[in-house]
């Protein structure tokens, strides 16, 4: 009974503080909105409208047709028409274009004779995304090689490749729930105890009969609610902005999310028992955040990574969450079939929460 009173005291106080701190409150709503629009619209794996230049030295109907096809794909936007490959190089150097297409005078003959590559792509190699695009664009002359007369084939191939409907939002949004939760949840609790230490509140608090577990739980529970609010925002936006489906049951989605929220919160608490200042807590959180984003399978395909990276990724909660949430939301998978990932998250939760409670001492030294 007394224990409950104290637990509620901490939770109530925490909620009041969250609601009054405009920055925290802004983060709760702002981070999901920002991230979702960022990843949904801007950071799109479907690259479009790369500025490009063309030097068409052949100027035949075939070459013009190819340029028109590439333009209509909207991957590249030919803003510059120049006379020679040399000028293309200059445009690239000046940063005015990222892709240059050079069609030599004997283009038609090369296409018909299968004499090596018919045209040349000049690419700004500093940007891996553009490189990737170029590699895919390269398939156009090759197709011409094998099918000398059929001009419409490369066009179709190109379109399919680039997924002109921008359907990647569907793949991004479920994982994004995990990224946003990792970012905000770890940070919120990561700062929760450090902030009290920095402001001197902790010295008073540890002189009261409050128990460690009461303090830890009281700090976590309000943020669980906040995490759920965030997830709801993301799901709704995903649904209405990007038509992201939820093929599995909504209950399963929230079970997975709940476990993941708790996992991140207790990780934050653990950080907050180790850090002395809010800045340190943020550094540690960031240190954890970066590999989570890069290795979890959110950014890059999990199985494309080298084995050691895959092993490392298995330690990160986000990896398991990305698997779970994609499974439930996109494939409509049954949670029973993904118990290992749920168990992995629960294990992580148990370990971090215990460690945080043990590490937190009601002493100053």
């Amino acid at each position, binding site marked *: *009974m*007394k224990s409950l*009173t*104290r637990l*509620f*005291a*901490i939770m*109530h*106080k925490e909620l*009041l*503080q969250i609601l*009054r*701190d405009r920055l925290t409150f802004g983060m709760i709503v702002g981070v999901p909105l920002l991230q979702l629009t960022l990843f949904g619209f801007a950071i799109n794996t479907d690259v479009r409208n790369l500025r490009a230049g063309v030097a068409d030295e052949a100027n035949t109907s075939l070459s013009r047709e190819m340029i028109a096809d590439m333009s209509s794909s909207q991957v590249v936007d030919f803003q510059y028409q120049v006379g020679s490959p040399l000028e293309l190089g200059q445009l690239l150097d000046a940063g005015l274009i990222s892709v240059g297409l050079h069609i030599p005078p004997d283009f038609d003959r090369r296409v018909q004779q299968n004499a090596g590559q018919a045209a040349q792509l000049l690419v700004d190699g500093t940007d891996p995304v553009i490189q990737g695009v170029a590699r895919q664009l390269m398939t156009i002359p090759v197709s011409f090689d094998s099918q000398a007369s059929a001009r419409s084939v490369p066009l179709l191939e190109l379109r399919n490749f680039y997924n002109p409907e921008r359907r990647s939002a569907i793949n991004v949004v479920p994982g994004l729930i995990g990224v946003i939760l990792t970012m905000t949840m770890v940070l919120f609790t990561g700062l929760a105890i450090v902030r009290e230490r920095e*402001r*001197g*509140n*902790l*010295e*008073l*608090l*540890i*002189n*009261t*009969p*409050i128990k460690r577990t009461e303090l830890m739980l009281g700090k976590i529970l309000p943020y669980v609610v906040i995490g759920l609010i965030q997830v709801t925002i993301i799901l709704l936006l995903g649904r209405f902005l990007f038509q992201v489906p939820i093929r599995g049951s909504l209950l399963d989605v929230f079970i997975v999310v709940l476990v993941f929220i708790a996992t991140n919160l207790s990780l934050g608490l653990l950080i907050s028992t180790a850090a002395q200042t809010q800045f340190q807590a943020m550094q540690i959180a960031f240190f954890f955040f970066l590999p989570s984003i890069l290795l979890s399978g959110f950014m890059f395909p999990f199985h494309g990574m080298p084995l050691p990276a895959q092993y490392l990724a298995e330690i990160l909660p986000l990896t398991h969450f990305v698997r779970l949430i994609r499974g439930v939301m996109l494939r409509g998978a049954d949670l029973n079939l993904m118990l290992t990932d749920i168990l992995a998250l629960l294990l992580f939760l148990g370990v971090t929460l215990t460690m945080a409670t043990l590490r937190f001492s*009601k*002493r*100053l*030294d």
Partner: protein
Amino acid sequence: MHEKSRFVIEASGLTKKFGSLTAVNNIELRVPEGVIYGFLGPNGSGKSTTIRMLCGLLSPTSGSVQVLGLRVPEDVEKLKQRIGYMTQRFSLYDDLSVIENLQFMGEIYALPRRMRKERIHELMVRFNLEERANQRAGTLSGGQKQRLALAAATIHDPKLLLLDEPTSAVDPQNRRDFWEMLFSMAEQGTTILVSTHYMDEAERCHRLAILDQGELVADGSPKELAAAIAVQVIEVSASEPNRARAALHKVPEIFSITQLGMQLRVLIPRHIHAAEQLVIQSLQVSGVEAHVRTVQANLEDVFVAVTEKHHEGRAA
């Protein structure tokens, strides 16, 4: 179990080291029940460190502490409900209002719901905080913060109150009011340990300990301390105090000179005979006109005497 002590606080050989720095060195402390016990000492003398060890926030490097009959830090959790602690720095929540802070503390001490409301109302009346009830604590003035902190520290009606420089940001009028509150609490049986570097506050304590560089250099009631002082105090009133001061500086027997307006307070060790005569002669030799008389030692003299001697002892 330990024999029940007559003292609310009993510490012996209490030492705290931070690396190579000895912040508190071998302190013996006995605080009887129901008194206001003062800790007087300059900055960095170890007042806060000692108080933190007494309430179990810091573990002593060596020595033993018993508070309200319980061993610290071993049994400190049982103590928390019975002691109140007011930190040197304001440590309630700036972003909560006065009443929210008190409610929070009331809940943390798990006061029964009905009692809680009454108690908070009572405290707000007693500490004159009613008009500020809904103001954020962060926007209170120094004195108001202090009153709020004291209200919070006493919400659970503790037997022992540890106050670390409670009046450092308070004007003299408010300081007097604050002390009135302390006295009325002491009358009701609360033992209060309070650190300060104000002489007038130290003077009000029933007993006090003077700390210097981590050591307890004197303790007793203010009267006892003044009586036991090992120096005689001679007051010199001169129209040219600077010249008088220069003249007296040359006298090796003089222990210390403090100027207060047109007057000098000259401390001379007790074993020197005819001290007043010595001062008069020294002034005459330099041709300084002055009125000289021996006066009662006050607490400030005690403080100067014990801390200066302590430094001499260290240097030797």
